[in-house]
């Protein structure tokens, strides 16, 4: 039936496929194992062994570190497998933490958690590149975010400028991943991790007292994410791999819904002029978002009109209006959110996509629900509105289902 050549190539194909698999499993277990051992050592040291002398403790402070370095050095010098490099890198990452932990205990160093985390991150950052280690890169991002949380959101918050350094340190690695391994799982992990980390961190860059401007900054940030996610590079991938688009879209909607409340604009009108830092960060973000949008247009990536891509510009205008007229901006924001919901529904209908259609309906519903909290509409009308929106859900879905069926039967 088939020639020997074809049979051989099929066989070798399956062989190669099987060879890849246990390796990957081994890699994951190797990384998990060394992460657990490393964390375990830190926890054991956190017991604060009173009975050991200072010298014994000092030796213990360096022992895991040196072991980690020997393993890492060995895997670099012998050019060992990925598993070796990832596992030893992760172990070394945690042993650096363990070492600093123990010394802090021995000498009762008060230094707050944030500076401790920062030193730790920076000491381990080179490992990302020396070992080409994805696991250490993930740890880097997660710990950098943890640092922001400790430093930026605690009492008497400071601006965690070093977070930008941490991002800059990971940037070449991430860009390389995007270029060389577009479809691999690790890249999509980062496509979620990076925007998530930035979303968590941005709030720490808002000066206390500039809270309302924070909403503005977030809208622009989500505009950046959404427009990035709309680039063909991300757009052509599966939706679940496109963290930028999902975080951008959901973030925009949630933030916008908050700003449809009148109290938001009233608070804003009361608050003082924004801090220079807030203005600088907002305008930088705005320029980035605008640059991405213009670039997308120049590359003819944008097909048709998608209101979502312009949210950051329109909201900026609303923000300016809000400084003058609170009522007008409140009404306009509500109209704007309604328009967004309707366009989303239209896109859903045009593309025959039930997910998008219902997302649009959900936006409208959320808007209706929000309005129930701050308006004095009678219960009868509120009830009627709910019935109408609910009926809308049924109707639109039903009509689309019918259309789809007739389309299929026509074929």
């Amino acid at each position: 039936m088939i020639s020997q050549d074809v049979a051989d190539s099929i066989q070798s194909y399956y062989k190669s496929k099987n060879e890849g698999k246990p390796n990957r499993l081994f890699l994951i277990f190797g990384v998990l194992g060394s992460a657990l051992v490393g964390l375990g050592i830190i926890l054991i040291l956190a017991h604060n062994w009173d009975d050991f002398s200072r010298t014994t403790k000092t030796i213990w402070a360096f022992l895991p570190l040196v072991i980690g370095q020997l393993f890492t050095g060995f895997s670099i010098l012998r050019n060992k497998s990925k598993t070796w490099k990832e596992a030893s890198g992760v172990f070394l990452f945690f042993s650096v933490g363990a070492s600093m932990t123990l010394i802090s205990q021995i000498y009762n160093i008060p230094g707050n958690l944030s500076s401790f985390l920062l030193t730790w991150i920076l000491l381990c950052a080179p490992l990302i590149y020396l070992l080409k280690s994805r696991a250490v890169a993930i740890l880097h991002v997660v710990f950098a975010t943890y640092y922001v949380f400790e430093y930026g959101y605690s009492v008497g918050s400071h601006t965690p400028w070093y977070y930008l350094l941490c991002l800059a340190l990971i940037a070449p690695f991430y860009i390389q991943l995007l270029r060389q391994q577009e479809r691999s799982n690790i890249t999509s992990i980062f496509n979620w991790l990076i925007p998530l980390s930035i979303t968590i961190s941005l709030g720490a860059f808002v000066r206390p007292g500039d809270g309302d401007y924070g909403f503005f900054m977030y809208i622009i940030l989500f505009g950046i994410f959404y427009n990035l996610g709309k680039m063909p590079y991300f757009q052509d991938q599966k939706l679940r791999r496109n963290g930028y688009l999902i975080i951008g879209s959901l973030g925009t909607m949630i933030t916008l819904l908050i700003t449809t409340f009148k109290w938001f604009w009233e608070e804003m009108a009361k608050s003082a002029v924004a801090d220079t830092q807030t203005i600088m960060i907002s305008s930088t973000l705005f320029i980035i978002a605008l640059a991405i949008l213009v670039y997308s247009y120049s590359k003819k990536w944008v097909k048709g009109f998608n209101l979502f891509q312009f949210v950051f510009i329109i909201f900026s205008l609303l923000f300016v209006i809000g400084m003058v007229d609170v009522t007008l901006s409140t009404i306009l924001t509500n109209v704007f959110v309604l328009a967004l919901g309707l366009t989303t529904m239209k896109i859903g209908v045009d593309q025959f996509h039930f997910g998008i259609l219902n997302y649009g309906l959900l936006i409208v519903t959320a808007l209706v629900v929000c309005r129930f909290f701050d308006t004095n509409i009678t219960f009868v009308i509120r009830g009627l509105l709910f019935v109408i929106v609910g009926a809308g859900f049924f109707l639109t879905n039903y009509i689309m289902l019918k259309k789809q069926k007739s389309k299929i039967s026509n074929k």
Partner: protein
Amino acid sequence: MKTLYVFLIFVAVAIVQLFVPAQMIFNRETVLKEGTVYKFKTRPVDPNDPFRGKYINLQYDINTLKTDDTLWQRKEEGYVYLIKDADGFAEATSISREKPDLNEDYVIAEISWYNKNTKEVGINLPFNRYYMEESKADAAEEAYRDAQRDSLPDNTYALVHIKNGRAVLADVLIDNISIKDHVKNDRN
């Protein structure tokens, strides 16, 4: 060849990774050996750190100072000048933005508040953490409370070595017994 370069860079990184903790140790050892020893009256409470374990937080009697400087702000740092009384207890004489002369002892403290009316600043001394074995931290707080009830005054203090503005907390003592041993004795 490339491997060798990567390895060499790694060696450099490894040295830095060793150097940073070693430097942390060295700095403190110098202070412990050469620094002046002060006693600070204090009060312990016990919190937690996710990586470094249990410690007792020390609230010192020295926590406010008179000052003529009206520009102090929260989270700023100032030089607190120290002198010793006859029993070796520390007294803070003044706070300043300027570094004192070499022969004066000082620590760098964080401002927690400034009161215009009383011309006072609240300060946090930088050696407010004392790490303890996890089972002992709670007991240490109890031991302190018990000691407060007895007759002796000034019975709880921290032993701090200070040199060139660098302070290392060596021990916390209740009735002249290390708090660690105190907890042990209580158990027996």
